């Protein structure tokens, strides 16, 4: 959330004791009874979900554009060398601050480095860091929520109190504090952003587990003598996963924003490594003269966030409507 936009991150975290428990979820505020934290969507069969997706795509140009952009991003991340022949680190003083044009689509920076190549490689860094952050939030948050929800009692009390304390501290500030402990660098920034996302996942998973715990199949498993870890992994976790995965998808955009913000502030990738937030920071010195230094990396971040949130919301809806 957040955030970079702290507001996005914040909006994800419901106030701990609000009488009206209606936490707005990440980029998509609740537009029905089934927000990420609300009533869980029923799981559609894979075939139906796909059918809905394909039919939906044809009718929704914006969603189609988002999917295509994410595919492009996936390409940039997996095989960047197919998309740019230029070395993102190669400097050439004679090309310093070239305007966007044929040879350099997005222009060059003060050291003559190709901005397009740096955006491609920088997006890769941002995406990998964002996914790492969400993966960490997902893993740790799910583990906490699973234990708290299933075991209940004092375990639940203690874990949820810890989560409550984390919620109180604005996401970006929490990430900053964690970075100050871990030290700077992209991996540490990703971990710090992941830590800030843990409370959201812990709460959603716990709520899901509380619902599932009383179901007949779990009681049947308990009665037939299965051990708690086996029940958690085989019965509770798979049934809790759909809303949690939607939250994870929604979270990716916010995580990318937060990573970029921390890098912009100078706590992420160290120069000359390309990273979108750091590129915007470097371009700041030339905002009066060379707009392309900041415009393209910033646009790349914004498009990643917009595309992931649109696709995540489409996933969420297709899960609900089937």
């Amino acid at each position, binding site marked *: 959330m957040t955030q970079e936009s702290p507001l996005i991150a914040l909006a994800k975290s419901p106030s*701990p004791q609000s009488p009206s428990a209606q936490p707005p979820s990440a980029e998509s505020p*609740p537009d029905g009874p089934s927000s990420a934290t609300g009533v869980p969507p029923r799981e559609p069969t894979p075939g139906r979900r796909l059918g809905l997706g394909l039919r939906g795509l044809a009718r929704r140009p914006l969603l189609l554009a988002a999917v295509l952009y994410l595919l492009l991003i996936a390409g940039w991340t997996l095989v960047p060398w197919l998309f740019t022949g230029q070395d993102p680190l190669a400097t050439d003083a004679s090309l310093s601050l070239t305007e966007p044009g044929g040879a350099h689509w997005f222009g060059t920076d003060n050291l003559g480095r190709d901005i397009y190549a740096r955006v491609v490689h920088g997006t890769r860094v941002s995406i990998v860091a964002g996914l790492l952050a969400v993966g960490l939030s997902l893993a740790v948050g799910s583990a906490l929520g699973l234990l708290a929800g299933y075991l209940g009692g004092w375990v639940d009390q203690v874990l949820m109190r810890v989560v409550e304390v984390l919620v109180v501290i604005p996401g970006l500030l929490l990430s900053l504090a964690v970075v100050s402990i871990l030290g700077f660098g992209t991996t540490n920034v990703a971990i710090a952003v992941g830590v800030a996302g843990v409370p959201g996942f812990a709460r959603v998973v716990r709520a899901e587990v509380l619902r599932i715990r009383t179901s007949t199949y779990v009681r049947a498993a308990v009665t037939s003598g299965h051990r708690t870890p086996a029940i958690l992994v085989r019965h509770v976790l798979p049934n809790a996963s759909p809303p949690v995965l939607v939250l994870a998808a929604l979270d990716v955009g916010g995580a990318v924003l937060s990573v970029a913000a921390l890098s912009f502030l100078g706590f992420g990738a160290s120069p000359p490594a390309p990273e979108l937030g750091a590129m915007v920071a470097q371009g700041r010195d030339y905002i009066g003269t060379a707009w392309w230094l900041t415009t393209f990396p910033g646009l790349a971040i914004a498009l990643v966030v917009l595309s992931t949130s649109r696709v995540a919301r489409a996933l969420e809806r297709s899960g609900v409507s089937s």
Partner: protein
Amino acid sequence: MTRYVLVRVVNGLFVLWAALTASFLVLHLVPGDPVAVMLRGAGGEGTAVDPAAADELRAELGLDQPVYRQYLEFVGDAARGEFGTSFRSGDEVTAVLGGALPATLELAGAALLLTLVVGVAAAVAASLLPTAPLRSAVLSSTVVGNALPSFWTGIILLQVFSFGLGWFPAFGAGDLSQLVLPAITLALPGIGLLTQVLGRGLRAALAEPYVRTARAKGASRARAVFVHALRNAAIPAMTLFGLMIGGIVAGAVVTETVFAREGVGRLTAEAIGTHDFPVIRALVFLAGALYVVVNLAVDLIYPRVDPRIVLRSA
């Protein structure tokens, strides 16, 4: 009601104590010697540390004391509103924060006002539009507001309005014209979120039977929105706005850096950059306190907006 407030205050104090304890632990969670990390500052791993200076700093920070005594002293000091001295400047943390606060309050106040006015106006305007596709088009377009990285929107605003058109000064603080661009930058993500939440709330409220009844009796769409729907849609928007107030310090970190403004946010970025742990601890604690207080205030206002809400201590 009194009991509810009492329980909430006690609970809030507990959360703050826990946040305080967590921020105490921060210093002890630093891998290796925190004093060495502080002395190296931004220099990184390789920088040599003078052992005498390390011992001196350790004594100054009380780190040569047993951990439980450090903890008791820290909590006692915090209860009196003292957070030790900034490692970077050597000044009292309280004084450092106090000096930075006015500029940030000005910025945060302007941004929150802007968020509230523009957010509510946009949501209401969208719900007054004649056709449903038009309404959802306007609402979903505000998603853009919170997808834009604010460090980038700030720079774009500078490029266009300061360097391009020359309407506003690029940097500095104090003058009202210097407040405009930073306030917009800080407000933009919030405006997007608030518009969506309030807009969706209004859409849901306008579909309620009581609105249909009012419309059947001849009320205009505007009257239905202002008199009937707005109040019913306000609760989630209020919750969100409360969260925004709590999160404004974090937003100020980026905004104040972009516009080179002095303030709490800038102080935060500098404290992180130089591992100034006493300042970081105080900031984390204060942000937590702000969150707890605002949340309680918002919850206490709920029943005034929606009389059906009864505050009960769970």
